[in-house]
């Protein structure tokens, strides 16, 4: 230690002494632990009229979607717009979309935790919850799109009197295994990181909430041994979950790439899908954070520094997506194979052109916009930009799934597709279900991981060097 005097947070002689720019930083701002606890817990107990109206609205959409799904099961898949050759349509498109959304949680909480990026701290839980809920609604689609959903369990490997295993050569089986693994591991990861905050909430609540948190906290007391085990478990999870995260969207891409359908049969699909998932998922996370920040008044924790860093990460993911898209497109365009050419012509100047230009515009313009600090740090601008990204990414998936299937090797078999009310209602149901799960989650579980913020604050000390107050790493370790 130099001759500078250490000045731990909270012990500065007065708040005036700390420069205003430090006050803007979450980990450096002058707050007591009690203030932080209060700021996290208070919005959870506030269920105003608006909140219940939102829950009712989402519930209504879900009920209508369930009716549509029942209608679909009752009368058959003919009630959707699917046909021959467009056997997969909006359901698989939305499935890929939700699996993509689920990737941001791991990106934020595991990758950034390993990289020790401090700006991840207030948003890890929101991101992990997004992963878990997106996977839950995505997991519905492999059921919804089945012709005979009442036989879905034939895909599950269990001892049966037919003495048959499922066919593990099928990418759908890989999907089943990968998604189940990802859902289980990301839920555990979400829960593990929640335990200290459950204990915090337990100590500050009464009534049913107290009983709930007492159960969920698993008797957490915060002893050194407990912290040691928790941090170790989290370290193991953050390393182990990354290969799972890469495998899931790769396998989803192989649902398409292993066939010899023109434009699907591509080796670049796996990394292209993974990076597209990160681009789309991070954008969705920014969208959700902005909405939750407004709805729960979490301006204290979700500051412009976080949106700034998240925006930069989205921009990088967007550039990578563009690179992978171009690498795939160039080779297919240059190869000029007749059916691929027919598909590309459809996209550039045919019936798919509006979707193609929507995809390119909605994916590329945000990259330019995010280069501006003002866009990254102004919530309303960032909200618009990230929503645009996901419009683009949804369109991209629709073009890949529905667009490509319309053309194949024998021109007599070419087809077209129109969605029906059943498909649109079921898709809307999953969006509403995701929003409802997330809304309820944010009122039951502390949305901001308090212990991670406190831990981060301990790592920093304002230290006086000469006349300057400088943030430096604390020496408690």
């Amino acid at each position, binding site marked *: 230690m130099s001759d500078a005097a250490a000045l731990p947070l909270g012990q500065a002689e007065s708040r005036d002494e700390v420069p205003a720019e430090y006050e803007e930083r979450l980990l450096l701002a002058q707050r007591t632990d009690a203030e932080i606890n209060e700021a996290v817990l208070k919005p959870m107990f506030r269920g105003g009229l608006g909140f219940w109206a939102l829950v009712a609205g989402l519930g209504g959409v879900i009920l209508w979607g369930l009716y549509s799904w029942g209608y679909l099961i009752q*009368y*058959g*898949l*003919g009630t959707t717009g*699917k*046909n*021959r*050759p*467009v*056997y*997969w349509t909006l359901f698989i498109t939305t499935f890929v979309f939700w699996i993509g959304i689920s990737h941001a949680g791991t990106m934020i909480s595991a990758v950034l935790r390993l990289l020790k990026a401090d700006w991840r701290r207030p948003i890890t839980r929101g991101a992990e919850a997004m992963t878990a809920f997106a996977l839950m609604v995505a997991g519905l689609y492999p059921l919804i*799109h*089945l*012709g*005979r*959903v009442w*036989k*879905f369990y*034939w*895909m599950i490997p269990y001892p049966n009197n037919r003495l*048959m295993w*499922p*066919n593990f*050569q*099928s*990418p*759908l*089986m890989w999907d*089943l295994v990968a998604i189940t693994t990802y859902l289980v591991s990301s839920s555990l990861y979400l829960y593990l990181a929640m335990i200290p905050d459950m204990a915090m909430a337990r100590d500050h609540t009464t009534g049913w909430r107290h009983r709930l948190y007492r159960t969920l906290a698993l008797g957490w007391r915060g002893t050194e041994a407990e912290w040691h085990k928790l941090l170790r478990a989290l370290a193991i999870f953050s390393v182990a979950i990354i290969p799972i995260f890469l495998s899931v969207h790769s396998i989803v891409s192989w*649902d398409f790439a*292993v*066939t*010899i*359908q023109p434009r699907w049969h591509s080796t670049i699909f796996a990394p292209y899908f993974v990076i597209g998932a990160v681009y789309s998922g991070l954008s969705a996370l920014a969208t959700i954070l902005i909405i939750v920040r407004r709805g729960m008044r979490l301006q204290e924790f979700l500051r412009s520094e976080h949106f700034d860093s998240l925006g930069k990460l989205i921009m990088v993911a967007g550039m990578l997506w563009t690179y992978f898209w171009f690498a795939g497109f160039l080779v297919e365009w240059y190869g000029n194979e007749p059916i691929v050419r027919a598909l590309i012509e459809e996209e550039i100047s045919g019936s798919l052109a509006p979707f193609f230009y929507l995809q390119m515009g909605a994916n590329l313009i945000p990259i330019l916009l995010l280069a501006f600090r003002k866009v990254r740090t102004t919530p309303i601008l960032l909200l618009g930009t990230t929503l645009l990204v996901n419009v683009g990414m949804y369109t991209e998936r629709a073009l890949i799934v529905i667009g490509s*299937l319309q053309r*194949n*090797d*024998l*021109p*007599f*078999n070419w*087809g*077209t597709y129109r969605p029906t009310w059943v498909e649109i209602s079921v898709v809307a149901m999953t969006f509403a279900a995701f929003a409802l799960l997330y809304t309820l989650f944010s009122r039951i579980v502390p949305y901001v991981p308090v212990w991670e913020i406190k831990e981060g604050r301990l790592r920093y000390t304002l230290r006086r060097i000469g006349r300057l107050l400088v943030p430096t790493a604390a020496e408690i370790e």
Partner: protein
Amino acid sequence: MGRDVNTLTKTSGNGRRWAMVIDLDRCTGCQACLVACHAENNVPVAGETASAYGRWLHWVIIQRFWEGQYPNVKARFNPLMCQQCTEAPCEPVCPVFATYHNPEGLNAQIYNRCIGTRFCGNACPYKARTFNWFTPEFPEPLTEQLNPDVTVRSRGIMEKCTFCVQRIRRVELAAAAEGRSLHDGEVQPACVQTCPPGALIFGDLNDPDSRVSQLARSRRSFRLLAELGTDPAVVYLKGGETNV
């Protein structure tokens, strides 16, 4: 080309490889094969609107391609059914083994195993598979002529041409009961039996003397999308010019 076709012999449980030869020179596009197939295999009729939207259920269909501009127009007819590929792209993708390769090299479709993922339909480059979008309906009096040897499929499952496997089995059982081997041409799928100009020929490709083997060795023989390497058991004989 003829030499290429004879590499088909690799799959054989009982030494047979059922195959069909389609002589495009003889096909007139009359669609009698399609009608016969509907009657034999209990294939429902989808109707005009559904068919226009690509939801027909025909197991065999005459694909018609127009060539040239009026008045110099040529129609080309290409009867297309499941090609019974040796390296079938539809087989590995099914999660529940509803489509699999039987010892005679046929792509068997097991209706009661199918859960309707339609992955096989996407994987098939010929799009020879059809899906039961609704519960099949057979208006009176069609219900009176359903074939008892063939399952009436339910909604939500895939189906396709089976080379009339029920007819193959019937002849095999009869021959076994009489203690003799099969004669060439004894097994006739419904389409082959019906084809008025005799454009469709069915038989065992592993028997070098059978008509299909001889025709498959013809200089005119080719297989559809042979470049994909699916190794189909349907062999086409190139047609001349058909002016309509």
